């Protein structure tokens, strides 16, 4: 509402093509197993699958019954079983148990495993070990990008974050490279590429390799996307750790937006039923409030309600003909608007109730204090109280991580005390959680700098020069200081505001955090795109511990039209938040570009298991 769409905004590519492609591939794979078959689907794949195919399409290709892959025996009487799974070891074990049970019972059936988005060798190894290699045929469904909205793509890989940023497993880098390759095949070459972070750099290198190997496919095509920006999630953990206050972000924090849709419970729908609602640009009411600060949403909704009332009221005093027109032309639209309006009003009410209950205002105050770097003692006390009152295990962790990253780690005394209280409040097994968070660099203890260097040099002596660099890399994740204060100062992340920050007419991206903080990730993107390079940002890059991990890759030959050059694709490796998406949309409107921002892998907090 605050931003009329600029008339000169570039047109977005037709991402629905990705859906059609994925559906056609799936159909092709199903047809590879002719005849009736039962389909076993992994839980994580069900929602994405729902977005591109429905039961009738599956039935049409002779899928008889559907089962969920879970830790329960399934009794299927079909002669052919098809499994649609992520390439995970536990799925292989499940399949092996099923096949081996059949073998014991002297039963022969046909089995097919479809891996999405690709097959891993470790999975084949398990099939071999379990003695069913050869009994099962394997295929790949290269479904790596799901369009969630006109300007949003997702890989729907929640395990991305854990696998890469915690375990250091690079198994999804090829998936990212393949996804980029697919995009450049469909929408033309990318004239300008930027990136920051190790994962970004490796993905970019592997993608270039793919392009070289299969060259010719994109040559001579007119680019539709002018700039691609790859960003590792660990470059900016801070933004992902802040409470969200734009509407879509709040809906996510409160109800969990999964795969572009949300389950509104009876408290929202004001009936006895839950409702699964798609949240995208097609919902006209949602589309107008999704990027707004929550404080603007009430006013907007009540205005809408009044308008709607007025439009319904018009029917009084209509003659028959006018009434006929009204019913045939306007009523349907009004009804739909009415329904959407009451849903979002219900959602707002529910959000308000929850937030009031948990003292959201205090929480936000604490977060802002941490971002600005004062009242650290008070904030620590607040976190302590939060833990002791068992408010929420995840929120407590989030606050601790925010404290750690903004302060370059907790001072040892606080670390020990908060950890002890956390274990008392939420359970001793969270010892493992703390170990994971420390490894991921999310929650650390300030250490005297020299201890690490000592270990490092000791180990370095043992190895050759070439390997020494790698060792240092491995240690750097532990020794890495977040330097948030210095970065914040350099990039002006805390706007100085005289008087009141007008959230209705935002002046910068800080509005997504009530005017208190410009998301670091989005600021980096803005700065680089402005310069079309990393020039002048050396100090920032150094502070981000990315000295050798920031890159630019421009192809001079293609003189792309200025129109397409304004389209930007931002790739968050390890997930992004709705606040960041809103901030980028704001940036796009300000500059007249459209930022389309796939959240590659959704952000998930590492947990113990």
């Amino acid at each position, binding site marked *: 509402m605050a931003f009329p769409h600029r008339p000169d905004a570039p047109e977005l590519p037709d991402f629905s093509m990705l859906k059609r492609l994925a559906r056609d591939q799936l*159909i092709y794979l199903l047809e590879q197993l002719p005849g009736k078959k039962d389909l076993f689907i992994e839980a994580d794949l069900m929602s994405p699958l729902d977005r591109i195919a429905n039961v009738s399409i599956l039935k049409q290709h002779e899928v008889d019954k559907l089962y969920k892959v879970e830790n329960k025996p399934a009794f299927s009487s079909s002669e052919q079983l098809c499994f649609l799974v992520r390439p995970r070891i536990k799925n292989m074990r499940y399949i092996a148990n099923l096949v081996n049970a059949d073998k014991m019972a002297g039963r022969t059936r046909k089995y097919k495993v479809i891996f999405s988005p690709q097959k891993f060798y470790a999975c084949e190894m398990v099939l071999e070990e379990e003695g069913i290699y050869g009994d099962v045929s394997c295929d790949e469904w290269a479904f790596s990008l799901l369009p969630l909205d006109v300007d949003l793509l997702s890989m729907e890989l929640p395990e991305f974050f854990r696998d890469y940023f915690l375990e250091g497993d690079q198994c999804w880098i090829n998936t990212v490279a393949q996804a980029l390759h697919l995009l450049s095949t469909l929408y033309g070459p990318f004239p300008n590429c930027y990136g920051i972070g190790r994962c970004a750099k490796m993905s970019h290198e592997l993608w270039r390799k793919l392009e070289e190997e299969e060259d010719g496919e994109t040559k001579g095509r007119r680019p539709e996307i002018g700039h691609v920006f790859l960003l590792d999630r660990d470059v900016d953990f801070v933004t992902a750790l802040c409470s969200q206050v734009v509407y879509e972000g709040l809906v996510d924090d409160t109800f969990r937006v999964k795969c572009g849709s949300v389950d509104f419970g009876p408290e929202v729908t004001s009936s006895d039923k839950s409702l699964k609602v798609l949240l995208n640009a097609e919902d006209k009411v949602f589309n107008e409030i999704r990027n707004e600060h929550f404080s603007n949403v009430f006013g907007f909704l009540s205005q809408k309600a009044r308008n709607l009332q007025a439009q319904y009221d018009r029917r009084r005093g209509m003659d028959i003909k006018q009434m006929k027109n009204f019913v045939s032309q306007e009523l349907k639209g009004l009804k739909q608007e*009415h329904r959407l309006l009451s849903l979002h009003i219900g959602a707002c009410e529910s959000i308000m109730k929850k937030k009031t209950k948990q003292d959201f205002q205090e929480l936000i105050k604490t977060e802002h204090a941490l971002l600005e770097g004062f009242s650290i003692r008070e904030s620590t006390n607040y976190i302590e109280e939060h833990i002791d009152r068992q408010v929420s295990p995840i929120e407590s962790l989030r606050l601790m991580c925010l404290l750690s990253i903004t302060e370059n780690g907790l001072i040892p005394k606080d670390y020990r005390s908060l950890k002890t209280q956390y274990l008392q409040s939420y359970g001793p097994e969270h010892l493992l959680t703390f170990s994971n968070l420390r490894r991921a660099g999310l929650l650390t203890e300030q250490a005297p700098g020299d201890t690490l260097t000592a270990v490092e040099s000791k180990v370095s002596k043992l190895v050759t020069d070439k390997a020494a660099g790698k060792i240092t890399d491995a240690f750097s994740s532990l020794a890495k200081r977040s330097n948030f204060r210095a970065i914040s100062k350099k990039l002006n992340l805390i706007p100085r505001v005289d008087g009141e920050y007008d959230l209705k007419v935002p002046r910068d991206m800080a509005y997504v955090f009530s005017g208190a903080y410009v998301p670091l990730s989005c600021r980096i993107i803005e700065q680089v795109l402005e310069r079309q390079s990393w020039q002048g940002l050396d100090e920032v890059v150094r502070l981000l511990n990315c000295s050798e991990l920031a890159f630019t890759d421009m192809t001079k030959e293609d003189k792309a039209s200025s129109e397409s050059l304004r389209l930007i694709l931002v790739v968050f490796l390890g997930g992004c938040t709705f606040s960041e998406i809103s901030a980028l949309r704001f940036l796009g409107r300000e500059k007249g570009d459209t930022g389309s921002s796939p959240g590659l892998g959704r952000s998930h907090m590492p947990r113990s298991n």
Partner: protein
Amino acid sequence: MNRTKGDEEEYWNSSKFKAFTFDDDDDELSQLKESKRAVNSLRDFVDDDDDDDLERVSWSGEPVGSISWSIKETASNSGSNHEREQLKNRNSFSSYAQLPKPASTYSLSSFFRGRTRPGSFQSLSDALSDTPAKSYAPELGRPKGEYRDYSNDWSPSDTVRRLRKGKVCSLERFRSLQDKLQLLEEAVSMHDGNVITAVLIFLKRTLSKEILFRELEVRQVALRHLIHFLKEIGDQKLLLDLFRFLDRTEELALTHYREHLNIQDPEKRKEFLKTCIGLPFSAEDSAHIQDHYTLLERQIIIEANDRHLESAGQTEIFRKHPRKASILNMPLVTTLFYSCFYHYTEAEGTFSSPVNLKKTFKNWLGYTKKRAPIGFHRVVEILHKNSAPVQILQEYVNLVEDVDTKLNLATRFKCHDVVIDTCRDLKDRQQLLAYRSKVDKGSAEEEKIDAILNSSQIRWKN
């Protein structure tokens, strides 16, 4: 960026962050309520028979015809013909009621009747010919097994490239250590984790573990892949050997400890935790592990005792407030709460008494610093959260010392009397006037305000 105290106060008092608050802004909520009323009042007029705009949803909340919904139906319909018949009827009924949705070509009932309307779905070949990436699907669709390759002469880089493409490729010719390592380095340089793991699987099979560990110690990227792989396939023994070799004692201990999560039986879990006590944790974690063991040991005793008491039905507290869940594996704070609730009066000698718990975990609880009572503002919030009656709330709000906080809480929780009295005590006529508009018309509160406003006894400050 240290600020002085003055700065801070200025910060909190500045208008910048008052732009919007979640708790005490009645106006916004009432605005919302008003909108809701308006919208609801329209319901009679529009209330409807057609659900065409939103997805039809089953009782469990899944959209009918969605894949998740269908799977649930399969589960509830395991094999019984009678049930299936019912399901069929139900489905055809619901699809009858359902108006055609633009997005789907088929109604749900159609797949129970078998294939119908074959012409309406775009055939695969049609669909493929109009997408620009027509070469894509067949290429990816072909089973990768067909690429089986019998050549033995691939160089490390060729081999890695073929592995990257998902082709089956024999690694057996890489027999010398040098060849193996070259292959590994080539895989690492390509960044593809799947290929790195494939090579590691081969190395693990063809090298002794000492040699494998030694070589990986100086190849950190590969090492991390091996560790993750061992975790995933659950090769706990080799993983522990690896950590031992690398001298990563803490990870060794944690990896062993993690196993307890897979043990459901409380006795066995307790025994397992006992084996963790001597492991090389940090001093701090050692104490946590010891306490974990002690806690579970204690919970097992309390649980057995209380389950008995509860089923005997002789103890009043268990009759009045039956336990909602077992106390096993609960955190210490919850356990303490439980013991205060069910065993408050017990003597120190009993294992379940709060005093005994406190003594047992003195070390543990000793870490926390002494603090003042939580403050009445917290008490009020807790009371509110648990829907305490207004009289009780008022009583406690009145105990809050700081006047601003008190007024704030009273306004938020609608303790009218407290707000009115406080305004009167502050002699703040303006605020009282403003509050008058927030209470219901003709209510006792309004009368009370009017009485105060009209009183000649009070010297208003404004």
